[in-house]
């Protein structure tokens, strides 16, 4: 509709009070979930009723009860406390596994997208090569080289993950650099660095941020898959994926060992996803 597509009307300015009400509901919900999670992750001792590592041979494989709301595992450890303490590690995974790819991929993608030409061609081939490797296999191989553990998992994911951000940003910068404001900057005599990082990047970064949210949820899942294969978080540390793997043998007899961490992963994933969708809405209104 030509009539409504470009209203000549100025959009009423957003006051502070208006900001909250204008935020998408999904975004608020995502913030709520993740906010709670971050709080729990920062102060797990405050929320956890027991020491997550303490064995209690007298209370092995207890079903959920008032004393142990999520039951206990085969060492008599309190599942609730383990789920709570795991949130710290899982959030760490979500952030550390993705922050380097995000930053590096974004910066590189911005430069490649702006420069174009031969840089773009070379970049294209590298991207092709990296994405043709099955991601999980590559990460398994790299973790095998470096040894299991979270830090090495971050490194492995970092070596591969930047490609996706770089692709997204490069494509977006390519679009943005054709817009008049980029030319306006050049006509004003601004430097390339200023145009790329001050002008193009802030306008191109939204899809990467949205992808980042998804990626954080995927990182948790990847962590759990690696945990299943024994390459992720190391015992006795509680990590949701490891917990699920630990509870695998008890699915029929002690479902609570794996189900509660599973729920935690789903809720966290939901939080990131809602936050991502919300951010997409929020950041897009500026355009």
């Amino acid at each position, binding site marked *: 509709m030509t009539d*409504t597509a470009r209203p*000549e*009307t100025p959009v009423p300015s957003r006051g502070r009070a208006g900001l909250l009400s204008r935020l998408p509901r999904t975004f608020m919900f995502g913030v709520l979930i993740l906010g709670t999670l971050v709080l729990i992750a920062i102060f797990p001792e405050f929320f956890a009723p027991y020491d997550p590592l303490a064995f209690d041979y007298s209370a092995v494989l207890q079903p959920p009860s008032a004393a142990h709301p999520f039951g206990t595992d085969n060492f008599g450890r309190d599942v609730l406390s383990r789920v709570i303490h795991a949130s710290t590690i899982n959030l760490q995974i979500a952030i550390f596994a993705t922050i380097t790819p995000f930053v590096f991929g974004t910066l590189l993608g911005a430069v490649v997208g702006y420069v174009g030409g031969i840089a773009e061609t070379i970049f294209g081939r590298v991207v092709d090569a990296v994405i043709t490797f099955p991601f999980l296999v590559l990460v398994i191989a790299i973790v095998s080289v470096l040894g299991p553990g979270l830090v090495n998992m971050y490194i492995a994911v970092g070596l591969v993950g930047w490609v996706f951000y770089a692709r997204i940003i490069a494509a977006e910068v390519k679009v943005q650099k054709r817009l008049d404001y980029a030319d306006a900057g050049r006509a004003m005599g601004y430097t390339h660095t200023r145009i790329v990082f001050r002008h193009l990047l802030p306008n191109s970064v939204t899809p990467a941020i949205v992808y980042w949210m998804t990626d954080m949820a995927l990182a948790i899942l990847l962590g759990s898959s690696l945990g299943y294969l024994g390459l992720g978080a190391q015992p006795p540390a509680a990590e949701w994926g490891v917990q699920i793997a630990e509870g695998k043998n008890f699915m029929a007899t002690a479902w609570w060992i794996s189900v509660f961490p599973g729920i935690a992963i789903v809720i966290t994933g939901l939080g990131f996803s809602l936050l991502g969708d919300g951010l997409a809405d929020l950041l897009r209104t500026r355009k």
Partner: protein
Amino acid sequence: MSSETVLSVRGLTASFGQGDRKLTAVNGVSFDVRKGEVLGLVGESGSGKSVTLRALTRLLPEGAEVTGQVMWRGRDLVSLPPAALRQVRGGQISMIFQEPMTALNPVLPVRVQIEENLRAHTGLDAAGRKARSRELLDLVGIPDAARRLNEYPHQFSGGMRQRVMIAIALASDPDLLLADEPTTALDVTIQDQILNLILDLRDELGMSVVFVTHDLGVVAQICDRMAVMYAGRIAEEGPVADVLAQPHHAYTLGLLGSVPHAGGERRPLHSIEGTPPGLAAIPPGCAFNPRCGFATSECRQTLPQLVPSGPARQAACHHRDRVADETTVPIPRAAGSGGGR
């Protein structure tokens, strides 16, 4: 040109959203379209002209609410069941759009896009449809029709695409063509060709045309009558030559003043101050009053009705007589941040 009315619109209202967020884009619009005439709907962005056009066949996004009456061949299109409405759409009333590049499906060859119309509204068999498609391309002046039928929209130039769209719209011999700024995206020489094509087709096929545009020049060149829209309502309506020669509404007068005239080179234009109101903030009274030099307290309080203001003319202005006497737009006294001179 006969004076038989083919389409009669009464109190057409279109709104979006619900409750507090309900926005009324078109508010109580009434007009008639006579057989064989070209009616121009003129206005700026947000005036509701395109929504009006689309509301005629209820071609609005889901969630839009249309009320009022659109009488077509004795039936009210506003309350027509969807299946019956589909027979009207494309069969009796066709529509063409501003951007042929986006209005034609980019992934389907032109042939499919014409033939699906023929399949929906005619009993032609495959061979018949093919022949008719070729005939239609010929009709709108596309050379080498047989070959071009199998091409995709992106393989046509802008002007040719607009011809394709017109061919599709004409596929089932409609009686009314709704044209939504069909030449805005085109260069003047091509616009000239397309406008002439529409007029030729009108003459040949005896259709009526409702032509939405923001360009007063286009209106002057092809329309028989014109209706000027502002903030979802018709401001004034009448024969083109009469309205352009002597506007009866301050907005029309301002619009005319904004267009450069020969002889006024390098002098300030008689522009209208401010910008058209958003749908969410339409001023009470006459919607134009904050930008109007004639505005009085009456204008700020009472909505002017569209009433006859001369032979075959109507205007919705409390001060139509004063406006009619002016040749240029006065500057509103309440002007805020600066004037045009």
